[in-house]
């Protein structure tokens, strides 16, 4: 009797801080345990795959550890490879909060990089910081407008944004190639058509004490900033309403079109900024090396992170680690490059399939919940 009363009181009473904490702890434990189980299952499956091939799983995972994080060099390698993914993942994650599936990061990155290179070259003699700022603004503006176009086409013409962003991505890459090999080509870049080099002063260097360029820091900062934007501001709140129920949002009087375009602009700006960083920190000029799949990988990172900008960080690092160890595995175990793709596929399918485990086990459910 007293138990029933206690339960009833617990249900109807305002949650105490202790109950709140318990809920958070349990949910938090779940968020860690489920992906851990997924990773374990993936490792087991992949080990089976390796055993069938006559290769040692122990060797494999030892190499993954060695190549991804057990030495300072490997750790930096991992972080470096994660850096562009942080930004391209944001390009998919931010509009996803509004219910839009944007897969055009690759093209926005290419055009953004091109624009940044153009800006950098045009501002030849100016002080380094100014040139860098101009390049970043150019990259972000062009990338932002490109994706905003997809958003606008969705809202005002009803064109599905997934298909339009994909098409725009292909068009952007063709445009970039056209300019790089044509009007913007550096005549001295004979055998690898590129734009002129950006001024030396504008080159982005490495974070002091490391071999990783500042692009990593930019990506990390933007992940945090955009997480704050989407979860703690009224813009983010409005965006999530649009994402939850479009009709309700419209009935509420929210300026849905404006929200969509702004979110898409932010997304494209992130990808464009990634392009600028590739130009300023890695290549020194814009050319076909901008189109290497960062955009497409970013889409997967975003989905795996459930479009949460903070969760993008560990997922991107996971990705970076797998890819970083790929080279070592190719060399030491004589396995082809495709092995890493198989590992990625298994890991990510496992993580996504493990979504179904949430809410299944009583241990993670707060005791007062029915």
């Amino acid at each position, binding site marked *: 009797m007293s138990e029933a009363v206690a339960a009833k009181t617990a249900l109807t009473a305002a949650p105490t801080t202790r109950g709140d904490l318990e809920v958070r702890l349990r949910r938090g434990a779940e968020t860690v345990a489920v992906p851990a189980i997924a990773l374990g299952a993936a490792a087991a499956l992949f080990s089976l795959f390796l055993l069938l091939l006559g290769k040692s799983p122990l060797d494999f995972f030892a190499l993954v550890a060695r190549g991804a994080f057990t030495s300072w060099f490997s750790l930096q390698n991992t972080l470096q490879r994660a850096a562009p993914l942080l930004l391209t993942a944001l390009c998919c994650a931010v509009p996803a909060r509004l219910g839009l599936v944007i897969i055009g990061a690759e093209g926005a990155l290419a055009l953004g990089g091109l624009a940044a290179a153009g800006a950098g070259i045009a501002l030849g003699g100016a002080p380094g910081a100014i040139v860098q700022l101009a390049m970043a603004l150019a990259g972000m503006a062009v990338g932002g407008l490109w994706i905003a176009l997809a958003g606008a086409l969705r809202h005002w013409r*009803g*064109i*599905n944004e997934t298909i339009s962003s994909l098409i725009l991505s*292909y068009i952007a890459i*063709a*445009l970039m190639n056209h300019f790089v090999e044509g009007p913007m080509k550096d005549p001295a870049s004979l055998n690898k058509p590129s734009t002129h080099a950006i001024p030396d002063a504008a080159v982005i260097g490495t974070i002091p004490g490391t071999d990783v360029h500042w692009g990593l820091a930019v990506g990390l900062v933007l992940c945090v900033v955009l997480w704050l934007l989407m979860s703690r501001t009224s813009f983010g709140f409005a965006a999530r309403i649009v994402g939850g129920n479009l009709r309700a949002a419209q009935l509420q009087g929210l300026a849905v079109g404006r929200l969509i375009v702004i979110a898409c602009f932010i997304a494209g700006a992130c990808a464009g900024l990634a392009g600028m960083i590739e130009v300023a920190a890695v290549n020194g000029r814009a050319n076909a090396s901008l189109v290497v799949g960062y955009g497409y990988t970013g889409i997967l990172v975003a989905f795996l992170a459930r479009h949460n900008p903070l969760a993008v960080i560990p997922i991107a690092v996971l990705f970076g680690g797998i890819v970083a160890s790929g080279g070592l595995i190719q060399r030491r175990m004589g396995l082809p490059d495709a092995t890493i793709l198989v590992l*990625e*596929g298994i890991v990510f399918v496992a993580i*996504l399939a493990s*979504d179904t485990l949430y809410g299944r086990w009583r241990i993670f459910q707060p005791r007062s919940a029915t």
Partner: protein
Amino acid sequence: MSGDALGLWGVPLAVASGAIRVGTPFLFVSIGECLTEKSGRINLGLEGTLVLGAMTGYGVSLESGSPWVGVLAAGGVGALFGMLHGWLCKLPRVNDIALGIAMMLLGMGLAFFFGKPYIQPSAPMLPSISLGFWSDVPQVRAALEVSVLFFVGVALAVALWWAFASTRLGLIVRIVGDSADAARAMGYPVDLVRFLATAGGGFLAGLGGAYLSLYYPGSWSERISSGQGLMAVALVIFARWSPLRCLLAALLFGGAGALGPALQAVGVSEGYYLFYAAPYVLTLLVMALTVSPGRQLTGAPGELSVQK
């Protein structure tokens, strides 16, 4: 072989034959995805299925000596892969868009991994039907060499269209895709229908892949696909979920893709990158002209997560 060039006639001929030649894989993948999406599920992993089908078709054709066995094997592997996607999506809370992308990676990885030994050798190719027998011009004859698979694809597109419109089975798929609650209320096994539709979509995508490796370009390597699977999924939305429109979209896309090389061959070679973007621009333009906010959702299965 006569040395007469076709001159400018080469361009429309290339576009027409390109529409069929290049468009066939798009046709298969898009009607496969059409089937899947009509049942309310989206499978972005068809790019992986396409590549896996290409590898399987090529490898089995090589090992068995018969390209048709290869085609069937490719379809089978595609169906299996689709079943995996379908089974995983059935689990509650799994996001089918994200899973599709992960499956794409897995499919490509498996295809490239097991396909390594098949890159060097040449496998027996699929035969073609000479539709150009009436012409004396060898180029016209060559251009009108059409693969049997193209006709299979057209037949399947028509069959699917008719099934969706007029048969009970097609109606069940549509109800399941429009409203799972209504379907359950009528006693239809929603999960099973979706599972089978996804498997069917995978089967068709596998066939499309076999076409790539066993007919055109007729080779297996890691670069065989240039995003056809992904684009074909997009074309389904463009075709507003009608199998017949999928056929038209595939032909449009394939024909536009043949423009670039054809124009260069007759001397138009400035800005060839822009011509290579032609299919995409064309698709976007057509969509911009034919879609309007009110019509966007016409034909979209209600349960499709892309629309929600």
